[in-house]
């Protein structure tokens, strides 16, 4: 057996906890301050143009992030069962099932479930699932649902696609004026975009530091520390948080400190984390000196905003999200990451829940292996529903893969 290796903790984790606790406390007690301050609460998809909502003083809440919390706390399987008993298919995304389950059985749900929404905003740039999921929510809560339809991009983004989304954003702004009773504030939106831009560039910078050998961060760090850029995108709190994290990561690089002691193997991760086994899963790697130096998932929040006037910028930024793009684009992205981060291999999580992310992986895997010459492993699991995870077969594959890399 390989000897135990110590995993280096980040001091910023405390600040992260504070930031997230504050966000969820505000969310939880929204009923006390939302109405007096005329700040409605919206449930939004992770790829929704949140800066526009923030410009209307809306408090955004992310059921997908909540799904990840359910996964980390190992209650997803229970909540999924509740949704399944109500007739939702076992093939439906486990974030959707966990969330719907949490609405039906708040007693089983972390934080007693999310507080009721005043409106719903869904954008199909990440998947088609969110449309039906949010339609179900709109029926349950009888609140308005705003949908942003972003056409799939088989190649580069086109003016036509941007124009189409731009028009919808204008309509959305008009709808939000009615819902919130506030006027659309272009200056306010610009401010929000600026905050997003700065936060994104910090997150990019942090990720770029991981090109260093040894890498200052491992995938579980990235997955945990991405939370603020997901739920607090476009706010001062996230900007403040990533400044602190950037300083700590930079310090590690300056000192030559790696996340994994004795880093020998550098890997790239593809797909959403396996939340209910976050540390256990990666420990099998870190124990043998293998570090995940970058990934495609948390990298989704490191993409710079497109130029142009605010609404136009939003239109192309949110249409160009990687899950909305071709297989060639995704393969190229992996190849570049492997080269840029000097990786020896990659691991793809074939995530039963997330079809747009997972269906094309096998083709990408072969293409990336052909072009880079490094091996790629496929692991079958689910991001939140632990019933799908078969520990022994996974461990077996992981061990064989590491042996291949060590040989």
């Amino acid at each position: 057996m390989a000897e135990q290796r110590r995993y280096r903790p980040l001091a910023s984790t405390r600040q992260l906890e504070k930031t997230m606790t504050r966000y969820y406390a505000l969310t939880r007690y929204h009923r006390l301050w939302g109405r007096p301050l005329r700040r409605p609460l919206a449930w939004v998809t992770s790829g929704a143009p949140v800066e526009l909502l923030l410009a209307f003083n809306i408090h955004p809440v992310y059921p997908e992030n909540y799904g990840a919390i359910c996964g980390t706390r190992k209650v997803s399987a229970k909540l999924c069962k509740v949704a399944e008993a109500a007739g939702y298919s076992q093939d439906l995304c486990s974030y959707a099932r966990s969330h719907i389950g949490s609405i039906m059985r708040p007693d089983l749900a972390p934080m007693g479930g999310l507080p009721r929404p005043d409106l719903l905003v869904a954008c199909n740039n990440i998947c088609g699932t969110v449309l039906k999921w949010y339609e179900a929510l709109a029926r349950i809560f009888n609140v308005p649902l705003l949908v942003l339809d972003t056409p799939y991009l088989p190649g580069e983004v086109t003016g036509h696609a941007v124009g189409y989304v731009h028009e919808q954003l204008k309509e959305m702004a008009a709808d939000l004026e009615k819902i919130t009773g506030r006027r659309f504030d272009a200056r306010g939106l610009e401010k929000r975009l600026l905050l997003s831009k700065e936060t994104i560039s910090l997150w990019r910078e942090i990720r770029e530091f991981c090109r260093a050998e040894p890498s200052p961060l491992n995938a579980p760090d990235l997955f945990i520390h991405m939370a603020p850029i997901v739920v607090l995108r476009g706010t001062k709190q996230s900007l403040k948080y990533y400044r602190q994290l950037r300083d700590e990561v930079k310090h590690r690089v300056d000192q030559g400190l790696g996340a994994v002691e004795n880093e020998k193997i550098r890997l790239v991760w593809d797909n959403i984390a396996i939340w209910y086994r976050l540390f256990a899963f990666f420990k099998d790697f870190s124990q043998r000196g293998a570090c995940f130096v970058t990934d495609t998932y948390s990298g989704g929040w490191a993409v710079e905003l497109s130029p142009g006037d605010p609404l136009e910028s939003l239109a192309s930024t949110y249409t160009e999200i990687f899950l909305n793009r071709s297989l060639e684009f995704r393969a190229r992205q992996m190849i570049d990451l492997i080269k840029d981060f000097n990786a020896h291999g990659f691991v793809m999580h074939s995530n039963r829940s997330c079809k747009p992310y997972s269906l094309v992986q096998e083709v990408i895997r072969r293409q990336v292996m052909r072009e880079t010459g490094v091996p790629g492993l496929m692991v079958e699991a689910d991001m939140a529903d632990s019933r799908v995870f078969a520990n022994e077969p996974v461990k077996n594959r992981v061990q064989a893969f590491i042996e291949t890399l060590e040989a």
Partner: protein
Amino acid sequence: MSKPVSKFYLGVDIGSLTTKVVMVDEESRIIARATGRTGFSGREVASRLAASLLIELQLSEKDVAATVATGYGRVTFPADREMSEITCQARGIYQLFNKAETVIDIGGQDSKVIKVLPGGKVSDFTMNDKCAAGTGRFLEVMAGALEVDVKELGGLAEEASDSCSISSICTVFAESEVISHIAAGRTKPDIVAGVCNSVAARVAALTARTGLAPDVVFTGGVARNKGVVNALAAQLGTRLLIPDEPEITAALGAALFARDIAPKNKPCV
């Protein structure tokens, strides 16, 4: 003070259905092997089998310089090292067929395709999804439904005149398909041929992922089943090389790794 080092190496493969042990000598030759049903405690079965090898060879434990364990029960066995059976399989096959580039292995609950580089290193591998379709377990369940011994399946398949189609990949549903074929009065050989085709189709699909480069070696207990061998060869359109003892090749690889890791001719104190 120095004394002569022992020159035997043990490989132990504790699989989900069967446990295999192989002893090799300094020249990497197999000098003894044994297999048994894994049952409840693979570790105990493996220890018993290893002990039986020692008796057969009139050796004592001291003569075994190193042991490597592989297979699902690998961590339970007190070996010098444990390794995945993918790495061991590639090594074992390379020893027997040094031109092999593809290894297809159908074990109890896994089927896998391994791409092997010259020297026996693994370059890529894929395994079945975590379900029993296309594995030895699948065949066992079907044999149970047909009330025949698994060992008879190969011979029966060869007698088929018009093979049935088994379309479900789920073991439980496929079993009910078999039962409905029985009820419809189809012959056992035709049903068995259908079952073998179904396993072959699953494994052929796996092979498509890694690609197929000759020579192709087929290992694992299922490689003794002629029905699956013929169906797979036909579906892949290639010749399949089969070791004389296809179930012990991963244990052989483990034994060879044991030989690698054992201290070499160093005086023991």
